[in-house]
């Protein structure tokens, strides 16, 4: 029969398996972008048009650098896979809201070209490109990267947490209102000793229920993407639900920080150990880092065991930097440091081959 003959040439020959799971690089990447949207939009609402511009510039610069590099290298231009978009977006989320636009542009280009493409492109980079870009900006323009915070004056959101501002030394007030929450927390010893702020006043100033709530919801200063722990957690849960990330890294990372910080503050006689721990967990970049950056597949370990070690390592390093380092924040450096340990972790956490003994 003639119709039988014509069947054959169109038959696709390929090796098993003939069915594949739905997720692809592209779908994963865009899903991550989607998961970051609530926190991103909230930041724009909070910080205004400049934050939006920062985000746009970061993304456009990242995608353009990727396209240009791939084009010049005569490789397939795969910008639609969304990976450069994530790099740009994450970089934007890791800079202060008032940073000059050209700095983020340069940061994005660095992230894509130096940290990603020169290592061999998608899948071969050792460092999380966005974090490498941020580190580069920190090293090159530290002033922009550490002072361009939104200043919350007593009349705006932060003030809602402060119920009693009388009797407060002016300087103390400046300290807590001009910096990020973690910056303020780092000043606490100074407040207590030099400025003679009483623990009670400290409570009103920094550790009241309202204040802690603001931290969680996100009415505080910080980098563009790190303000609202709540929205970041929602995004993270979405990724967990979609099985794009597993619980291992975020749970271990956050868990380690909780335990480490609580132990530190209780043992060191700090008057408000629980509250201080809440600061460390819900403010700063921990949620963003734990759910969106430490989970970057390319730069984190491949086995669950390895992921647990990686998460714990990130947690410990974050605590160490925050408590004893020069910066109030340590999430991005810890992740970068742990990125370098990934090959080693991978080597020692290989799964056991079926039918062999440990």
């Amino acid at each position: 029969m003639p119709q039988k003959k014509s069947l054959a040439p169109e038959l696709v020959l390929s090796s098993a398996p003939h069915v594949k799971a739905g997720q692809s690089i592209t779908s994963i990447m865009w899903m991550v972008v989607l998961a970051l949207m609530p926190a991103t939009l909230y930041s724009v609402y909070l910080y205004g048009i400049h934050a939006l511009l920062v985000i746009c510039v970061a993304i456009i610069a990242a995608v353009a650098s990727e396209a240009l590099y791939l084009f010049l290298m005569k490789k397939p231009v795969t910008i639609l896979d969304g990976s450069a978009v994530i790099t740009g977006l994450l970089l934007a989320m890791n800079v202060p809201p008032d940073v000059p636009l050209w700095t983020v542009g340069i940061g994005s280009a660095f992230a894509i070209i130096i940290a990603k493409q020169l290592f061999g492109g998608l899948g071969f980079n050792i460092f999380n490109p966005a974090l490498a870009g941020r580190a580069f900006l920190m090293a090159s323009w530290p002033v922009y990267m550490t002072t361009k915070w939104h200043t919350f004056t007593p009349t705006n959101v932060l003030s809602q947490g402060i119920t009693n501002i009388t009797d407060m030394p002016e300087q103390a007030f400046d300290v807590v209102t001009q910096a990020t929450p973690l910056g303020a927390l780092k000043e606490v010893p100074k407040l207590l000793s030099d400025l003679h702020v009483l623990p009670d006043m400290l409570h009103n100033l920094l550790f009241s229920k309202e204040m802690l709530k603001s931290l969680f919801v996100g009415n505080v200063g910080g980098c563009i993407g790190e303000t609202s722990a709540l929205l970041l957690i929602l995004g993270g849960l979405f990724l967990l639900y979609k099985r794009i990330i597993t619980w291992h890294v975020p749970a271990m990372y956050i868990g380690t920080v909780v335990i480490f910080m609580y132990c530190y503050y209780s043992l060191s006689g700090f008057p408000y150990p629980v509250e201080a721990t809440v600061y460390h967990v819900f403010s700063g970049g921990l949620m963003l880092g734990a759910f969106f950056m430490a989970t970057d597949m390319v730069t984190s370990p491949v086995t669950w065991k390895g992921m647990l070690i990686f998460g714990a390592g990130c947690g410990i390093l974050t605590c160490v930097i925050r408590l004893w380092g020069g910066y109030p924040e340590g999430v991005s450096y810890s992740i970068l440091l742990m990125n370098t340990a990934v090959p080693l972790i991978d080597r020692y956490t290989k799964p056991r081959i079926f039918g062999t003994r440990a």
Partner: protein
Amino acid sequence: MAFNTFIGGIHPPENKHLTEDKAFSNLSIPQLCYIPMQQHVGKPANPIVEVGDTVREGQLIGLSDGYISANVHASVPGKVVEIGRYPTLYSKEGVCVVIEAQGAFSTSGKILDEEQWESLTALDLINRVAEAGIVGLGGAAFPTHVKLQPPRKRQIDTLIVNGSECEPYLTVDDMLMQTHPSEIIEGVRVALKILGITQAFIGIEKNKPKAIQALEERLTAISIPEKITVAPLKVKYPQGAEKQLIHSILKRNVPSGGLPMDVHVVVQNVGTIFAIREAVVLRKPLFERFITVTGEIVKKPGNYKARLGTRISDVIEECGGLTEKPGKIIMGGPMCGIAVDTIEIPVVKGTSGLLFLKNEEIQVSQYRPCIRCGRCVAVCPAGLMPFELVNAIEKGRYDLVEPSNPFDCIMCGSCAYCCPSKRPLNHFIRMAQEKLHKKHKQ
């Protein structure tokens, strides 16, 4: 046993609904039967008929050649019209005996005599199995009489019957267990006698409750000296892979590089067990088998009994044709089956099903670099790091490939199934295995 399962594995969509309620029906006898001399692992059989000969149904036409080989029988009565080379599942030019159907059928439609097999010796039984040309019907097609005679120094204590049917789409084993529980149990008893043991487990995934029930009911209704137990298993692919099955049921781990007999186990597929019974009790050689013909574009998907040597084109016609042109035709299931490039290929002993996929159902996309997501590592039931192995293979770094245990890969395809970069991981590993085999031979 609370944890009847193994480590790793995946949950692909089962897609068994197309055929799971379809009782067996016979495909009609094709005009021309193309019977390959190679339908098994090992050496092809030697044709012992000549063009012009008239053959009976079930007559021996290909004689097993050597220890690892199997007999081949005429699937239909008729005249040998040609002995030539045609495309088969295993070769582009496999020797086939072409029989034009004519004359009387000695078995079809007639009930064969049941023989008292219990008085036969194990040797008699194994000879009957070997004569009947039985091979593993799950797909591997390893000669069954060889598998049932492990070297003496390997003490065997348990027979595991593989009724897990973890491949998506396929439902033949399920239907067989539902409709022929007594025959399967008798077959298990024959196999146990051959092996000289008394303990057997029938492993069935829990998504086949009717099969489990049918066998369990039958087992409680009869009294037999052997200890045969149904073991319901967690639904997870590749539950039916030998080593994983043994682990799920007995918690024994076949050593890396070893065989089931190293842990005192022999595994047989339920279809094979059924064929063993037919060979021994009915003295019927293996010339037909049950297959699932399925896919959204098949007009009458179902479970059919097909004569070996029936070409795909005839099967399509028998199943009412296709609603649209297929993009891919797979012999076997979607996870382990083989895509064929012509519908002239005949059904062979290892064909458990025919799956027709339409163009939209085929996922052929360019694969991309590994993004180290770790999914292949998490699902690999062999405990390998497929991505690392394949990165080394891709770079041609065979010095790194060998220490990464490529031969522990059971080719289940779980890694490639879940890879977001769509990397054909097991394909690369198979290539590496072949390359290393060649290297070692030199």
